[in-house]
């Protein structure tokens, strides 16, 4: 007795709208961490990084933004996200305390190669975090990415559509 051949024809599908097919995708989000600049003198020096954001996601109030942040701002953001959201927050590049000790042969935390390594780690961190649907609901992320400065006395809250 011959086996019945199963019907494997595709299910009916609606044809795709050409605007949807060829238009810009709805998931555009680009974050760059660039232009490290060391400011201040002597013991009061610190490095800031420029965070450039371009997006078409409605959850972000600004479609383009540019802010400057330092490493401790990133640490603050990570702490806020860990506490306020259910996201498993990825690690930041190292704190490198040993580089802050005196009597080093190199420039310590102001060493070019160290800054570049850190810049890459910060960029990876932000891209991972900013694309997370749950992290995108946190006020602290939007403040970090798009507000002029980070107000550490803010009230944590959830964001819906901008």
């Amino acid at each position, binding site marked *: 007795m011959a086996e019945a051949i*199963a019907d494997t024809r595709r299910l009916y*599908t609606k044809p795709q709208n050409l605007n949807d097919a060829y238009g810009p*995708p709805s*998931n555009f989000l680009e974050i760059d961490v660039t232009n490290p600049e060391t400011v201040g003198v002597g013991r009061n020096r610190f490095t800031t990084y420029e965070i450039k954001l371009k997006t078409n996601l409605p959850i972000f109030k600004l479609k383009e933004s540019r802010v400057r942040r330092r490493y401790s701002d990133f640490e603050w953001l990570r702490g806020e996200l860990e506490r306020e959201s259910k996201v498993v927050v990825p690690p930041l590049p190292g704190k490198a305390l040993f580089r802050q000790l005196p009597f080093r042969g190199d420039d310590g935390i102001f060493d070019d190669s160290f800054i570049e390594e850190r810049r890459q780690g910060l960029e990876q961190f932000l891209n991972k975090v900013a694309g997370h649907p749950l992290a995108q609901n946190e006020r602290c992320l939007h403040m970090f990415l798009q507000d002029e400065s980070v107000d550490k006395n803010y009230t944590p809250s959830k964001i819906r559509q901008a």
Partner: protein
Amino acid sequence: MSFFSFGQSAEIDIVLNDAETRKKAEHKTEDGKKDKYFLFYDGETVSGKVNVTLKTPGKRLEHQGFKIEFIGQIELYYDRGNHHEFVSLVKDLARPGEMAQSQTFDFEFTHVEKPYESYTGQNVKLRYFLRATVSRRLNDICKEMDIVVHTLSTYPELNSSIKMEVGIEDCLHIEFEYNKSKYHLKDVIVGKIYFLLVRIKIKHMEIDIIKRETTGTGPNVYHENDTIAKYEIMDGAPVRGESIPIRLFLAGYEMTPTMRDINKKFSVRYYLNLVLIDEEERRYFKQQEITLWREGDVARKSMSHQAAIASQRFEGSEKTLPQAKEDSN
């Protein structure tokens, strides 16, 4: 076997009457090896002969009786001592006495009920076997013969498709559809994933088949999950309005029919797990149970009836699709 070297001993051999014609089926043993056993269905008669061969010729065998049993039992691995017998039939072959020479006894268990399918799993085993026993004062002589039982079903009268819209608000909305809710073991899953909103960066999408074996009751319920198959259905980033087809042939995977609450001891259920993975390796998934059943070679609906059902849902048809069920995930 006898530990005492004095006295007579015997070898028992069980042979089925239809051993030449009956089909054998492959079945996994507890240690993962595959063996072939005689295949039986519910209601079939189990008949044959028990050959008792005396080891030492000339000597008599004293015994307390011969019997043969047909047993269907469930064995939970964490509770090996307790076998739960759901079928237990016995036929006496000889009364207590002496056996002077090797003999053969006929037996027949007529139209035996075999309500469940044979199953060897991670934490539980359901098996059927014949056991011939020569009872003796000090130690019995036993021989067991395992058989395999398959439970068959016919094409279900009602076999609705599974269609649902799921997603994360403002991030990802998809509508998935599988052509049936009940599939036989050699069936094909035909379906599609339709993207309504894509605000995340998807890298690829796969469909997994998960087998879940549940043993125990009440607070001691234990689930053992096993991913039987992983099948990539999309590589790359979709946009709104795109449909991704699914065509998954089940015959290539080792699966059993769905078993629900067998003798109130265990269940084996199957789930389709649709998984989307984004560029940061985050996984978004939706699990949906499907019912698997074993098709018999004889019992089938006519081809034309199958074709009629199929044509209602495929390309080229003018019919509108049924209402989508709302399900936010």
